[in-house]
């Protein structure tokens, strides 16, 4: 009898926990989503002041029209697209080449190469020496400063190496016997077999280049080279920017819409690409 009662009590407590846990998760969802929804709603809202609602009261696409028709706004967007595409391709090329060399077990100097890359992960010279190097190379105030330094990423190289390690060596060997050179093996066998790894690390690079802001703060102060992140920052900080006659009057809408434009490309790929992002993290974590 007592036993049965205890059991019921046990289930009751369990159900209570489930309900509370579910409610907590819903609360968490609200906390995460409201800021995003509010910005999206206000980007479509023609009203002069922000309200309390999570939907536009005077719906209008005006802010987005301003962004695509104002040179000061669409130019940074084009720079963002250009640096993301170029940077991702460059980053992938550098990463895959390095990782392919690192899986050559009998290569003389392989251990040295591996340490050479590993050290960049632990030590760095700091802001000022890096700035001075780029300055003396003539790369400050050019897009090279945005594209090149970020393309060498030790973490991505080791991640890629872990992926390549899973390709059966017999495939390389038979190709070599058939007389294929290392670059041929690389392009004809390794890359085609690594689609998932390329997607995963390519997405890391793409997000990194699309979100680039640090390199601009450090090395680039020419407005015509700004990417959309820097432009967005400028819009949020300076009301003066909004004196631009094409933006005036749309100030708040344009700010909100600029946030949305910065996020939208990512939101489109995120549902399909999420597993690639997580795959990269968990592979790295297990091997660490």
């Amino acid at each position, binding site marked *: 009898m007592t036993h049965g009662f205890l059991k019921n009590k046990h289930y009751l407590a369990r159900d209570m*926990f489930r309900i509370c*846990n*579910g409610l*907590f*998760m819903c609360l*968490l969802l609200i906390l*995460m989503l*409201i*800021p995003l929804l*509010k*910005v999206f709603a206000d980007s479509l809202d023609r009203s002069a002041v*922000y*309200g*309390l609602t999570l939907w536009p009261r005077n719906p209008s696409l005006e802010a987005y029209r301003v962004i695509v028709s104002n040179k000061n706004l669409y130019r940074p967007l084009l720079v963002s697209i250009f640096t993301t595409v170029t940077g991702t391709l460059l980053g992938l*090329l*550098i990463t895959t*080449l*390095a990782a*392919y*060399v690192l899986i*050559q077990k*009998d290569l003389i*100097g392989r251990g040295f*190469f591996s340490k050479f*890359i590993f*050290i*960049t992960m632990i030590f*760095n*010279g*700091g*802001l*000022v*020496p*890096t*700035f*001075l*190097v780029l300055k003396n190379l003539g790369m400050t105030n050019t897009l090279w400063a945005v594209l090149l*330094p970020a*393309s*060498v990423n030790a973490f991505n190289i080791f991640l890629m190496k872990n992926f390549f390690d899973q390709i059966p060596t017999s495939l390389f060997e038979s190709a*070599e016997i058939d007389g294929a050179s*290392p670059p041929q093996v*690389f392009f004809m066998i390794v890359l085609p077999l690594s689609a998932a790894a390329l997607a995963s690390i390519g997405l890391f690079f793409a997000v990194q280049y699309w*979100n680039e*802001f*640090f390199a601009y703060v450090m090395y680039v102060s020419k407005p015509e080279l700004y990417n959309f*992140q820097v432009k*967005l*920052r400028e819009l*949020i900080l300076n009301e003066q920017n909004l004196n631009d006659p094409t933006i005036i009057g749309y100030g708040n809408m344009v*700010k909100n819409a600029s*946030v949305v434009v*910065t*996020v939208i490309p*990512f939101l489109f790929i*995120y549902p399909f690409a999420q597993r690639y*992002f997580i795959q990269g993290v*968990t592979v790295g*974590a297990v091997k*660490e």
Partner: protein
Amino acid sequence: MFPMKKRTLTLSWVMKKMYHDRMYYLMFLPVFVFALLFCYLPMVGVLLAFFDFTPFKFKFVGLANFMDLFFGIRSVNFWRSVYNTLFLSLSNLALGTILAVSIALLLNEIEQKKFKAFVQSVLYLPHFLSWVVVASIFTIILSPQGGLINNIFAFLGKERIYFLAEEKWWTPIYLFVSRWKETGWGTIIYLAALSGINPELYEAAEIDGAGKWKQALYITLPSLLPTIIIVFVLNLGKVLNIFESVFVLMNPNVLKVSDVVSVFAYRTGIQQANYGMGTAIGLFKSLIGMSLVLITNKINERIRGSSIF
């Protein structure tokens, strides 16, 4: 295929082997050159910390830059930035660990697969947004001119507050925004660790009459502990690196509570073009960061008898 005769490890064999593998060296060249230029050359550059180096001067001054930082005219701002850095990142780290572990534990209890996956997707999302975007979103929402929070305040008949420009609000807001962005991502590693716990442990505990709460206390938490410690130690090394998150949320009104070492180095070294001093601040930062990692690793070794390196 090159014959691998280990016995004949002569110079001529090495030369031949390297010539045979020349394509690989060529393929490594890009990463070699880039790392040399962008990672190793700046490492040599830390020597500038011992120079008085501005666009107009270049003179060896020994430890004068450090003396100036520690005891001289810059010391007030310098120690302030050290304090802020440690305070902000350590609170962030402690808060982050507690929140990520708790949320991972709760997520792990959700039985509806689809709901769980949806919550996870939403929680991970802000990790991929740039700090500029996140700061912009919260600047808009916290704006005194019609931001959502102030509108709620006004609706309730309260005074409007310029949150990001008030010292007492800035720190909690910084911590909240950092957690909003990164907590979800932090749960991934704990969720992976949770899924690796042997289910037989729970079955055995259930037979012994341990309730869910006791199981969490005596099985789940101890199993998570190694992961918690590893993540904590790895993050401790990065504690002094906070730059972008602070940079995009700070403004001159709250310099007192928000100036951190990297931002101080940036202002001194790059904005004021005092390269020697900026490098000295950076070097101080790297040395402290490295010792933090080594110390915590030592403590970890003492406690658990194993090193993570």
